C-alpha cells in the first residue's frame, strides 16, 4: 500500500501550491515540499525490505478491457530513480524559492513542478506498460507547461512547443511499440514482459517493435537526430532546466531502455543501433558544447553528450556496462543539476548567461566559483570525483565490447575523443566564467546569492566529492539493487578509485592532456568552424511545421474547400462505397423471407414521400415552399410509423416535426426568401448522380435486409419489458430502463445544445427585415384576437394531453419525450399568439435551470439505485392500492421520465423562445436601450437577459 502512496503523494501535491499560494511564498514552498519529502521517506523506509529481496508490488485492476492496471513496483531501478526525482526535486523547490522573481506566480510554477514530479515517479514505478506510457505522456505535457512557464517570451513558447511536438510524437511511437510488445509477451504486466525476453526476441515483429520503442526513448532522451529540442528547451527557468534536463525528464528515455533491457535488449540489432546512436550523440553534443557561448547552451549540449554516453553503455549491454550506465545516471544527475543551478545563480546575479559578458567572477562570487569548479571537475572526469569513476568504467567497457566486430577499436577511440571534448568544454566553462578577465561588463554587479539558494548546489557538490572519494561505501548498495533489477541476477563488483596503471587510465590521461591543449587552442578551432554556416534547429523545425500545416490546408482546400456541400458529398461518397461493397458481396438481393404484401395506401404513402423529397430539392431556391414540402415528408414519415405499428415513433416524429417547423420558420425570418441560382449544371448533375446512386444503394440494402429473417435483439426486449422493467410499452421501457444510460446521455446533449444555442443567441443582433421579399411591410395586426383567445383556451387542454401522454407512457404509447415536446409546443403557441412580452411576464423564469434540473433528476434517479446496492439506473417498480383509485403502479422509471420531460421542455423552449425573441424588440440587449417605445418592453428583458 505504501507504494501507491509514494506514487500518489506527489500527484496530490499538485493541489498544495494551488491551495497555499495565497499565504505567501515561504509558506507555499514549505507546504509544497512536505508531500514529496514524505514520499521520499516512504521510499527509503522500503529499502530494508528491498535488501531482504522482497518483491514490492502493488496492483489494482483499473481498466481490464484496455489491459490497464494501477500497478506499481519498487525495485532497485525504481529506487535509484525515485531518489533522484524526489531528492533533486526537493532541492529544486528550495532553489526555485529564491530563483523566481517576486512578482512571478510561484504557485503555478510549483503546481507544474509537482505534476511533473508525479509523472516521473509514475514512470519509474509503473508495473504496467500502458500505465507507464500514461505517465510518459504526462511528463511531456507537464514539461511543456514548465518550459513555457515564461509564456510571454516567444522563445519559451517555441521551445515548449518543439519539446512537446518531438516528445509527444515519440510518445505515440512508444505507445505503438508498447502495444506490440505487450502483444508479443501476452501481457502488459511489467514482470511478465521482462520475463519473456526469449519469446519477444524470436517474434518476427521484433524489429518493428524495437524501432518504435527506441523512437520513443530517443526523442525523450534527446538522442541524435532528435536532440535539437533540448537546447531550445533552455528557454525555461533554470530550476526547470536543472530538474528536467539534468536529472529527470531526459533520463526517462534512458530509464525506459534500462527498464525494458531484459525484455528487448538481447539482439545484435539493439547493440548496434543503440550504441551507434549513443556514440554519435555523445560526440555531436560534446562538440557543440565546446562551440556554444551561452552558459545554459553549453550545459544543454553537454547533457546531450552525457546522455549519449549512457546510451552507448546500454547498447553495449554487458552486466558491467549496465552497472556503469546506472552509475553514470546517478553521477550525471548530481553534477549536472549542480552546474545548472550554478549557471542559474550566475544568471540571476549578473543578469546574463553570455560568456562574452562574463569573466573574472571568482572575486565577486568565490563560493559559487569553488562549487562550480568542483562540479565541472566531476563532469570532466577528474580523479577523486564521481564522474571519473563512471568514465573509467565507460572506457573499460568500450575496450571490452565486441559490438562493432572488426572495427571494435573504433569505440575506445571515439570514447577517448568524447573524453577530450568533455575536458575541453568543462575547462572552458569554468575558466571563461570565473578566471578569465571579462571582456564586457555584465548588466548587474555580481555578488553572492543568498546562502539558502546556494545550499542545493553545495549538497550536490558534496555528494559528487564524497561519492568520488568513497565510492564503495556510498554507492555500492544502491547500485547493487539497481543493477540486479536490470540484469536480473546479483552482480559482483567492486567500486574503487585506483585500479593500477591500465589502458582506461591511459585513455583518461590522454583525454586530459589533449583536452587542455584543445581549450588552449580553442580560438583557432572556433575560427575554423565559423567558416561553416550554422543551422538553427528551431528555424528548420518551424519551417517543417509550417510546411506540414500548409500542405494539409492545401489538401483540405482541394478536397472540400470549406464548402459544406462538398464536405457532405465526401461523406455520402464514403457511405456509398461502404454500402456498395456490402451489396456486391451478397449473392441474391431478395432474401428468403420474400416480399411483403403491398396495398394502395402503402403505394400512395410511398408516392407522397417521394414527391415530398423531390419537391423539397426542386424548390430549394424558394425557401418557404421548400420548407412546406419538407413538412410533407415529415408527415408521411410519421404516417409510415403509424402504419407499421410504431405509435411511439409516430407521436415523436409528429411533435418533433412541429417543433422543427417552428424553428425553421423563425430562422427563415432572417434569411432572404429566395436564393440565387448557385449551382452550375455540371454540379447539379454530379449531385443528382451521387444522390440518386446513394438512394438506390440504400434502398437495395433496406430491401435486402427486410426480405431476410434476421436474428435481432428485439425479442429480448419484448420478453423482458414487463418482468424486468414493469411496463408494457417496450419502447418506453427501453428508453427509460434498458438503455437508460443512452437516454441520459441524449438529454444531457440536448440540454448542452440548448445552452449553447442560448449562448449564441444571447446578444446576437441580426438584420431585421421590415418587409417581405416583395416589399410588403409586415401586417400591423400582430396578435389576432381569434388566435389569442383560442390559444389561451387550448393551453390547459394541451397541458392535460401532455400529462396524459406522460403518465401512460410506461404502458402505452407516450412518455416523457413526447409529453415534453407537447408542452413545449403549447407554450410556444402562447408565445406566438400573445407576444414575447406578455408570455414573459407570465412565465417569469429562465428555462436553462429547467433543462439542468431535468438532467439532474434523471441522474439522481439513476444514482438512487446505488443506495439499494443495484447498478446505476436500475429501475424499481411496485403496485400500490389506494381507496377509490384502486391498484396502480409506481416505478422509478417514471421519475427518470420526469427528468427527460423537464430536459426536453427546458431545452426546446430555450431554443425556440430565445430564437423567437431575437425576432422582436425583446431580444437581449447589450446596453440598456433608452428609446421611448422600447423602454417599457426592454425593462423585462434587460433585467435578466435570456
Amino acid at each position, binding site marked *: 500500500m505504501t507504494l501507491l502512496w509514494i506514487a500518489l503523494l506527489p500527484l496530490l501535491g499538485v493541489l498544495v501550491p494551488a491551495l497555499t499560494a495565497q499565504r505567501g511564498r515561504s509558506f507555499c514552498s514549505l507546504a509544497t515540499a512536505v508531500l514529496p519529502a514524505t514520499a521520499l521517506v516512504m521510499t527509503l523506509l522500503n529499502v530494508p525490505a528491498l535488501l531482504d529481496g522482497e518483491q514490492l508490488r502493488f496492483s489494482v485492476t483499473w481498466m481490464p478491457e484496455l489491459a490497464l492496471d494501477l500497478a506499481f513496483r519498487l525495485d532497485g531501478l525504481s529506487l535509484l530513480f525515485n531518489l533522484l526525482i524526489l531528492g533533486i526535486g526537493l532541492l529544486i523547490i528550495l532553489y526555485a524559492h529564491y530563483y523566481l522573481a517576486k512578482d512571478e506566480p510561484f504557485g503555478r510554477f510549483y503546481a507544474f513542478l509537482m505534476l511533473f514530479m508525479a509523472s516521473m515517479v509514475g514512470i519509474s514505478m509503473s508495473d504496467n506498460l500502458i500505465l507507464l506510457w500514461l505517465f510518459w505522456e504526462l511528463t511531456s505535457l507537464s514539461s511543456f507547461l514548465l518550459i513555457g512557464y515564461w509564456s510571454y517570451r516567444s522563445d519559451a513558447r517555441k521551445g515548449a512547443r518543439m519539446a512537446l511536438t518531438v516528445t509527444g510524437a515519440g510518445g505515440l511511437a512508444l505507445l505503438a511499440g508498447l502495444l506490440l510488445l505487450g502483444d508479443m509477451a501476452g501481457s502488459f504486466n511489467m514482470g511478465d514482459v521482462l520475463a519473456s525476453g526469449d519469446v519477444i526476441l524470436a517474434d518476427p515483429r521484433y524489429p518493428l517493435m524495437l524501432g518504435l520503442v527506441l523512437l520513443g526513448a530517443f526523442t525523450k532522451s534527446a538522442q541524435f537526430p532528435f536532440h535539437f529540442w533540448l537546447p531550445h528547451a533552455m528557454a525555461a527557468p533554470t530550476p526547470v532546466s536543472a530538474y528536467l534536463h539534468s536529472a529527470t525528464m531526459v533520463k526517462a528515455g534512458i530509464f525506459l531502455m534500462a527498464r525494458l533491457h531484459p525484455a528487448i535488449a538481447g539482439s545484435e540489432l539493439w547493440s548496434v543501433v543503440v550504441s551507434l546512436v549513443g556514440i554519435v550523440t555523445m560526440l555531436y553534443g560534446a562538440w557543440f558544447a565546446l562551440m556554444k557561448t551561452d552558459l545554459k547552451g553549453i550545459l544543454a549540449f553537454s547533457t546531450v553528450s552525457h546522455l549519449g554516453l549512457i546510451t552507448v553503455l546500454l547498447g553495449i549491454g554487458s552486466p558491467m556496462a549496465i552497472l556503469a550506465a546506472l552509475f553514470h545516471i546517478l553521477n550525471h544527475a548530481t553534477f549536472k543539476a549542480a552546474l545548472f543551478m550554478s549557471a542559474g545563480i550566475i544568471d540571476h546575479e549578473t543578469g546574463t548567461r553570455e560568456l562574452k559578458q562574463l569573466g573574472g567572477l571568482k572575486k565577486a562570487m568565490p563560493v559559487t566559483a569553488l562549487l562550480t569548479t568542483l562540479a565541472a571537475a566531476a563532469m570532466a572526469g577528474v580523479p577523486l570525483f564521481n564522474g571519473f569513476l563512471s568514465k573509467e568504467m565507460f572506457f573499460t567497457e568500450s575496450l571490452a565490447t565486441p559490438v562493432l566486430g572488426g572495427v571494435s577499436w573504433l569505440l575506445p577511440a571515439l570514447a577517448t575523443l568524447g573524453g577530450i571534448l568533455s575536458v575541453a568544454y568543462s575547462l572552458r566553462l569554468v575558466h571563461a566564467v570565473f578566471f578569465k578577465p571579462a571582456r564586457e561588463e555584465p548588466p548587474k554587479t555580481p555578488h553572492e546569492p543568498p546562502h539558502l539558494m546556494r545550499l542545493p548546489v553545495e549538497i550536490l557538490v558534496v555528494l559528487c566529492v564524497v561519492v568520488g572519494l568513497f565510492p564503495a561505501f556510498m554507492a555500492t548498495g544502491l547500485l547493487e539493487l539497481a543493477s540486479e533489477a536490470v540484469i536480473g541476477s546479483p552482480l559482483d563488483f567492486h567500486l574503487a578509485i585506483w585500479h593500477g596503471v591500465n589502458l582506461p587510465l591511459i585513455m583518461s590521461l590522454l583525454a586530459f592532456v589533449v583536452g587542455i591543449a584543445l581549450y588552449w587552442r580553442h580560438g583557432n578551432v572556433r575560427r575554423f568552424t565559423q567558416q561553416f554556416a550554422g543551422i538553427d534547429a528551431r528555424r528548420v523545425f518551424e519551417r517543417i511545421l509550417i510546411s506540414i500545416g500548409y500542405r494539409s490546408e492545401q489538401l483540405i482546400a482541394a478536397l472540400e474547400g470549406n464548402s459544406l456541400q462538398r464536405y457532405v458529398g465526401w461523406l455520402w461518397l464514403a457511405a456509398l462505397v461502404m454500402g456498395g461493397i456490402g451489396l456486391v458481396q451478397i449473392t441474391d438481393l431478395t432474401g428468403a423471407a420474400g416480399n411483403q404484401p403491398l396495398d394502395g395506401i402503402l403505394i400512395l404513402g410511398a408516392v407522397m414521400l417521394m414527391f415530398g423529397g423531390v419537391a423539397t430539392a426542386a424548390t430549394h431556391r424558394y425557401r418557404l415552399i421548400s420548407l412546406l414540402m419538407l413538412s410533407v415528408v415529415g408527415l408521411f414519415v410519421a404516417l409510415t410509423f403509424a402504419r407499421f405499428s410504431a405509435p411511439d415513433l409516430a407521436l415523436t416524429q409528429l411533435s418533433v416535426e412541429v417543433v422543427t417547423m417552428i424553428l425553421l420558420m423563425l430562422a427563415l425570418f432572417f434569411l432572404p426568401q429566395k436564393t440565387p441560382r448557385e449551382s452550375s449544371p455540371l454540379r447539379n448533375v454530379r449531385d443528382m448522380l451521387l444522390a440518386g446512386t446513394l438512394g438506390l444503394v440504400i434502398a437495395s440494402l433496406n430491401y435486402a435486409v427486410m426480405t431476410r429473417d434476421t436474428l435481432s435483439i428485439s425479442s429480448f426486449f419484448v420478453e423482458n419489458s414487463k418482468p424486468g422493467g414493469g411496463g408494457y410499452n417496450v419502447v418506453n421501457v427501453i428508453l427509460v430502463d434498458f438503455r437508460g444510460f443512452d437516454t441520459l446521455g441524449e438529454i444531457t446533449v440536448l440540454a448542452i445544445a440548448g445552452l449553447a444555442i442560448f449562448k449564441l443567441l444571447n446578444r446576437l443582433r441580426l438584420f431585421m427585415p421590415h418587409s417581405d421579399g416583395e416589399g410588403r*411591410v*409586415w*401586417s*400591423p395586426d*400582430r396578435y389576432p384576437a381569434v388566435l389569442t383567445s383560442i390559444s389561451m383556451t387550448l393551453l390547459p387542454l394541451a397541458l392535460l394531453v401532455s400529462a396524459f401522454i406522460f403518465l401512460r407512457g410506461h404502458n402505452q404509447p407516450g412518455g416523457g419525450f413526447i409529453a415534453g415536446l407537447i408542452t413545449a409546443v403549447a407554450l410556444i403557441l402562447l408565445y406566438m399568439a400573445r407576444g414575447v412580452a406578455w408570455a414573459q411576464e407570465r412565465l417569469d423564469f429562465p428555462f436553462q435551470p429547467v433543462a439542468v434540473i431535468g438532467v439532474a433528476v434523471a441522474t439522481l434517479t439513476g444514482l438512487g439505485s446505488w443506495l439499494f446496492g443495484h447498478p446505476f439506473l436500475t429501475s424499481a417498480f411496485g403496485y400500490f392500492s389506494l381507496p377509490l383509485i384502486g391498484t396502480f403502479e409506481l416505478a422509478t422509471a417514471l421519475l427518470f421520465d420526469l427528468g427527460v420531460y423537464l430536459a426536453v421542455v427546458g431545452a426546446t423552449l430555450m431554443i425556440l423562445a430565445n430564437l423567437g425573441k431575437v425576432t422582436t424588440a425583446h431580444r437581449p440587449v447589450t446596453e440598456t436601450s433608452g428609446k421611448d*417605445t422600447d423602454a417599457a418592453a426592454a425593462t423585462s428583458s434587460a433585467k435578466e437577459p435570456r
Partner: protein
Amino acid sequence: MSVIVEALISLLLIAGGIFVFIGSLGMAHLRDFYMRLHGPTKATTLGIGCMLIASMLYFWSVDGKPDIQELLITLFLFITAPVSAHLLAKSGLHLRLKHADKTQGKPVELRPEEVGDKPVPHPDKGHG
C-alpha cells in the same frame, strides 16, 4: 348492432364522405383564394367530424363502452380549424391576393392598414 345504430353510422359516414368530397372539389374548382378557403376549412372539417362521430359510435356498439377519444379529436378539430381559416384569410388580405369579380366584399375594404388614415409603422421599427 341494432339496425338503427347501423343506419345512423352509415348515414354519418356517407354524409362525412360527401362533405369531404365537396370540400376537396371546392378547393380544386373554385376560382380565387378567398372562395377556395371555404372548402377545406368548413366542408372538410364537418365531413371529418361526421366520420369521427361514426367511428365513435361504431366502437361503442362493438366494444360495449363509450370511448371519448374521437369526441376529443373532433373538439380539437372544431376549435382549431376556424382559427387556421381566419389566419389564412387575414394573410390573404394582407398579401393582396387576386380575387374574382364575383367575390363579395372587396378585400381592400378589409385591409386594416388602409382603413386607417396614415401608414402604420412596423411595431419593431424595422432594422435593428
